[in-house]
């Protein structure tokens, strides 16, 4: 297990990777990626029991499904930093002939990605299918999934949420990146999510809350979620995050949802993020 300080150190490098990928590609989604860096660092370095080399079926290992595929920069950084593929490959993000597509895909066989995502609202269904397949195959490992909050406006999620409770998918741990922002502005202005906790509870899930940008808290809440496994209910962590967390001028606004920083902005962002594991070469 990594200490909280070690996780924070890794997350700082992951954030540098996010900034440098989007800057180099001159496109991509830094805001949500930065907000989820702590969660994914904790999940992959302290909790997820994955095997290398990567195999698609994920049998006898924990599986992570990214539903909000636009935060691919943080996903790719985490996969690279956990040894799924060479870190220098991050330099190819969003470029022609790259395995690192703008949104995650399986067509290029990038290790660590099991399903394409980007068109929103589909990941929870896939995660549920994986969770039920694990139960069917007497595989006791777990399925984790991450979804955005604006993404919950997609109706398919609620089909999956209803079905997961029906099937008592208690090997499924979903996390909602609840940063309150989406492309056109705050959730409450676009389409309010209303009583999010009440909605999940009414659908029959065990609901936990976390501060996704407090490493101690999110690391603990993932442990807590695992303690609820096998109790007949799927589990959700409603994770409050700040979009753009770690870079002052990107924080708390939807403006950096899908905009890459320019040279000057990149320099300013990197000044705030310590290089801890070594930058990849561009």
């Amino acid at each position, binding site marked *: 297990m990594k200490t909280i300080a070690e996780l924070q150190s890794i997350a700082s490098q992951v954030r540098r990777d996010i900034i440098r990928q989007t800057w180099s590609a001159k496109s991509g989604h830094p805001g949500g990626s930065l907000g989820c860096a702590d969660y994914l660092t904790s999940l992959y370095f302290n909790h997820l029991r994955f095997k290398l080399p990567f195999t*698609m*079926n*994920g*049998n006898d290992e924990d599986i992570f*499904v990214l539903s909000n595929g636009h935060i691919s920069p943080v996903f790719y950084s985490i996969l690279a930093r956990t040894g799924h593929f060479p870190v220098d490959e991050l330099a190819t993000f969003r470029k022609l002939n790259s395995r690192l597509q703008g949104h995650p*895909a*399986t*067509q290029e066989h990038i290790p660590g990605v*099991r*399903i*394409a*995502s*980007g*068109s929103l*609202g*589909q*990941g*929870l*269904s*896939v*995660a*549920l*299918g*994986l*969770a*039920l*397949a*694990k139960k*069917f*195959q007497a595989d006791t490992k777990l399925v984790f999934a991450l979804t955005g909050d604006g993404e919950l406006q997609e*109706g*398919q999620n609620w*089909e*999956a949420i*209803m*079905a997961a409770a*029906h*099937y008592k998918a208690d090997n499924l741990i979903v996390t909602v990146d609840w940063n309150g922002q989406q492309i056109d502005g705050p959730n409450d202005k676009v389409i309010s999510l209303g009583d999010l906790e009440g909605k999940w509870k009414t659908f029959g899930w065990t609901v936990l809350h976390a501060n996704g940008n407090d490493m101690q808290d999110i690391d603990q809440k993932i442990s807590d979620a695992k303690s609820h496994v096998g109790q007949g209910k799927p589990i959700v962590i409603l994770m409050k995050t700040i979009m753009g967390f770690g870079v002052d001028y990107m924080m708390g606004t939807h403006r950096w949802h899908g905009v890459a920083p320019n040279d000057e902005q990149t320099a300013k962002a990197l000044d705030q993020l310590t290089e801890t594991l070594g930058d990849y070469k561009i």
Partner: protein
Amino acid sequence: MSWDKFTSTQKIATRNGFGDGLLEAARSNPKIVALCADLAGSLKMDLLEKEFPSRYFQVGVAEANMIGMAAGMATSGLIPYTGTFANFSTGRVYDQIRQSVAYSGKNVKICASHAGLTLGEDGATHQILEDIGLMKMLPGMCVINPADYAQTKAATMAIANHEGPVYLRFGRPDWPVFMQNEKFEIGKAITLREGKDVSIFATGHMLWQALEAVRLLEQEGIDCELINIHTIKPLDIEAIIKSVKKTNRVVSCEEHQRNGGLGDSIAQTLALHHPTRMEYVAVNDSFGESGKPMELIEKYGLGVKDVVAAVKKIVL
């Protein structure tokens, strides 16, 4: 080659072929699981549910979730068969199929009943006539439209051994059974009758209509070659070109829109390899309506007389 054997003494719906084929495939392949969106009886998936309850997943009226779940199950190495009506198997869940199944390269078998006009009285909301086009445009998607009970059963079993996504399309009404002695191989056309005057390519229910038309035309001295294209993608280009080089006239028959169906795939093949005169027997840019299956077949230009007329138009 004798083609007298293609007669029918009984009618059974193609969807029964699916239910029976699924059960038989599941008996021999433990990786097969089934997902159904509240239509187990209609698709005869209750047979599998009864014998293998742990391999049957009722998902309710939630087709998008069903496709995603199937993609997840396929990722883990299972072979999921999804079942609902053709309308809800395709148009309703196109993006889910596109991203989570086709683009992700998942081994999901999308099994679709009640396709086309012969769904009957429920009307145009349910009578999808665009599904072949929707599915064949997706890279890597195999598209199969069997002709009768026997071929549907054989196809249902065969697709388990095909690695990759499949769209299997079948129907609701009782329909003549006549292909029970023909070997089914994905992508391999079946010649029912050799002839020199015209090549008739038919898929799904329309193979029987074409067959009856050929018998009538035979009496009038028109020598038709009748070929069953059960697999629209990948298309048996070799069989098509070989036949057309002999006859130089083509009629395509399908219970689908003219736009985007089997006929369009054949026309593309002809344009590229052997430009040839062609007639379509298909629904021409129109929705259906309520009615009895055979009434609809007649009204929308898919009757035996319509096949006869198309052949005469191009031959005489």
